[in-house]
C-alpha cells in the first residue's frame, strides 16, 4: 500500500529546495515551481519509469517540461531522485552552471530530456518522441507538462491534432491549470475555456484532478495509463502553493524571495 504521507513530505522538501535555489539565484520563477511540486513528486517518486544512474536508459519514460520557466522544480526533483548532487542546485542561473535559467540540453544535466523555454514546443516534441517509441516498438510513455497560459499558443493545438491523428496512447499531457499568467488571470488575458471541450474536440481523453492533492494526482495517472488514446490531465493547481501568503497571486509568477522572505516561506511550508 502506497503511503501518501511519504510523498507529501517529499513534496515539502522539494518546495523548500525550490525556494532555497531561487533565493540563491536572485531571479527566476517561483509560482509555477511551487504549484507543480506535488505533480513532480508523484512523477519522479511514483509514476515515471526511470533510473537516476542511467539517464540515457533507452526504456525510460520521457518527461518534457514544456513550460521551461518551471525549471527549478524539475532540477530539484532530479537532484532528489539522485541524478546529481543537491549542492549543485545552488548554481541555478549562474555563469557556467548546468542549471540554466530554462532547461538546456547542451549543458548535459542528467535527466533533462530537451531544451525548453519558448512556449508551445513541448507537446510537439513529445509527439515526436511518442511516435519514435511506436516505431521502436517500446512500451514506455511520454509525459508533457504544459502551462494553461501556454495553451494560447496555436502550435499546442497543431500538436494536439497530430497526437490524436496518430492515436498516441503512450502520451500523457498535464495542464498546470493555475488560472493565472504574467499579465493576470487567464480568463482576462485570453480566456482558454472551455478547456475540457477543447481537448475532447481535438480527439483526446480528458481527466481532471486537484494538482495539489497527491492522492488525486496518483488516481489520475493510474487511469491515464490505461487509456487507448492520448490523454490530458487538467490539473487544478495554485500558483505558489504551500506558501499561503503568495498562493494564487500572479505577481509571484516571475519573482523570487529575498533571504527574509525565503525563511518565512520555508517556515510556512514546514508548519502546514
Amino acid at each position, binding site marked *: 500500500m502506497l503511503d501518501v504521507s511519504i510523498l507529501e513530505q517529499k513534496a515539502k522538501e522539494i518546495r523548500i529546495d525550490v525556494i532555497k535555489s531561487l533565493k540563491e539565484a536572485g531571479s527566476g520563477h517561483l509560482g509555477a515551481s511551487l504549484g507543480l511540486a506535488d505533480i513532480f513528486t508523484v512523477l519522479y517518486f511514483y509514476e515515471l519509469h526511470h533510473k537516476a544512474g542511467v539517464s540515457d536508459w533507452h526504456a525510460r519514460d520521457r518527461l518534457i517540461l514544456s513550460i521551461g520557466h518551471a525549471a527549478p522544480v524539475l532540477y530539484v526533483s532530479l537532484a532528489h531522485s539522485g541524478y546529481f548532487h543537491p549542492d549543485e542546485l545552488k548554481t541555478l542561473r549562474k555563469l557556467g552552471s548546468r542549471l540554466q535559467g530554462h532547461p538546456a540540453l*547542451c549543458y548535459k544535466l542528467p535527466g533533462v530530456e*530537451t*531544451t525548453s523555454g519558448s512556449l508551445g514546443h513541448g507537446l*510537439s516534441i513529445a509527439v*515526436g518522441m511518442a511516435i*519514435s517509441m511506436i*516505431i521502436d516498438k517500446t512500451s514506455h510513455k511520454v509525459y508533457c507538462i504544459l502551462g494553461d497560459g501556454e495553451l494560447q499558443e496555436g502550435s499546442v493545438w497543431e*500538436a494536439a491534432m*497530430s497526437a490524436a491523428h496518430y492515436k498516441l496512447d503512450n502520451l500523457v499531457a498535464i495542464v498546470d491549470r493555475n488560472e493565472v499568467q504574467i499579465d493576470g488571470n487567464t480568463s482576462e488575458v485570453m480566456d482558454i475555456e472551455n478547456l475540457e471541450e477543447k481537448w475532447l474536440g481535438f480527439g483526446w481523453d480528458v481527466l481532471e484532478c486537484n494538482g495539489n492533492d497527491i492522492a488525486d494526482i496518483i488516481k489520475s495517472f493510474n487511469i491515464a495509463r490505461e487509456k487507448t488514446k492520448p490523454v490530458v490531465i487538467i490539473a487544478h493547481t495554485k500558483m505558489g502553493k504551500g506558501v499561503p501568503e503568495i498562493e494564487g497571486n500572479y505577481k509571484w509568477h516571475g519573482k523570487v524571495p529575498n533571504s527574509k522572505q525565503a525563511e518565512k516561506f520555508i517556515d510556512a511550508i514546514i508548519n502546514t
Partner: protein
Amino acid sequence: MFTNKGNTATKIGFREGLVEIASENKNVLGLGADITSSVGMDLFAKKFPERFFSFGIAEQNIAAVAAGMALSDKIPFFSTYGVFATLRCADQIRISICYNNVPVKIGGAHAGISVGPDGATHQALEDISIMRTLPNMTVLSPCDANQTKIATIASVKQVNGPCYIRFGRAEFPNFTDENLEFIVGKGQVLKKGSDVSIIATGHMVWEALEAAKFLKNKSINAQVINIHTIKPIDKELIIEAAKKTGAIVTAEEHQIYGGLGSAVAEILSQYYPVPMRIVGMPDCFGESGKPNELMNKYGLTAKNIVQNVMDLVHPL
C-alpha cells in the same frame, strides 16, 4: 569544362538523394507537410510508407515533432517550401532543433525567384540569411540536381546536427557528376582564373560558368567557385581567391542582404579586403512570371555577373 547534361529541377536531386540515404540508414524518417510530391518527398513516402508521417499544414508542429524524433535517435527530414520551412517555424528551428543540436534535416524547396508564377509569397529569397544566423545549423545550397542528390546524402553522412538543404523547382542545367568531390564546408573551384573570382551558389553557379566563358572573349580570365555550403563557409578558399585574383563577384538567387554575398563580405572585410560586388535579389519582393523572365528582370543572369566583373576589372 562543364557541359549541360539536360535541364533538371534540383528538387529531383533531393527526391532521389532522400530515397538513397533512407535505403542505407533505417533511422531516416520523412515528415510530410501536405505538399509531399511538390517538394520531392513522394518517392520516399511510396518506398518507405512505414517511415513516412504526414502532418498536414502545420510547420511549427512538424519542426518540433522532428526535434522530438531526433532526440529519440531518429534522423527526420521535413520538407516544405523554403519560405515556410524557415520562417513559419523559425522559433522551433532555433530552440528545439538548433539549441538542442539534433540531426533534423530541413528541405527548403522552391528556393529563389525561379519558382516563377506563384509569385512573391512562394519565392524563398531570405532563407539563407535566416538559417545561417542560427548556431549549430549547416546550410547547403547545391548547384544542380546531381549535386543536390549528393548534398542530401551528405546531410546525413557528413553532418551530425541540424542541416538546411536549399533547392528549386524550375529546370536548370545539370552539369556536375559524382567525380566532383563533395565535402560539406569546402568550396569547389570549377574553373581556375587569375583576374577575378566569381563565387556563386545554387542556380547561379551555371550562370557564373557562362559568364566566365563570355569574359574569356574579353581577355578576362575569371575563376569560378561553387560555394555549396553557405555555413560553415570555406573561409580559407575565399581568402585565397581574394589574394590570387584581387577582385570578387558573388552571385546568388537570394536577397543581397544576409546571403552568400554577405557571408563572403564578412570574411573579406576582416581578413583580406578586395574590391567586391554582390549579384543577388535587390531589397524587394519578387512577382509572378516565367523563371527566365524573372531571372532577367531582377538581374540574376550571366550577363549581370559579366557587368559586375567589368565594373571591377575594367573600371571606367
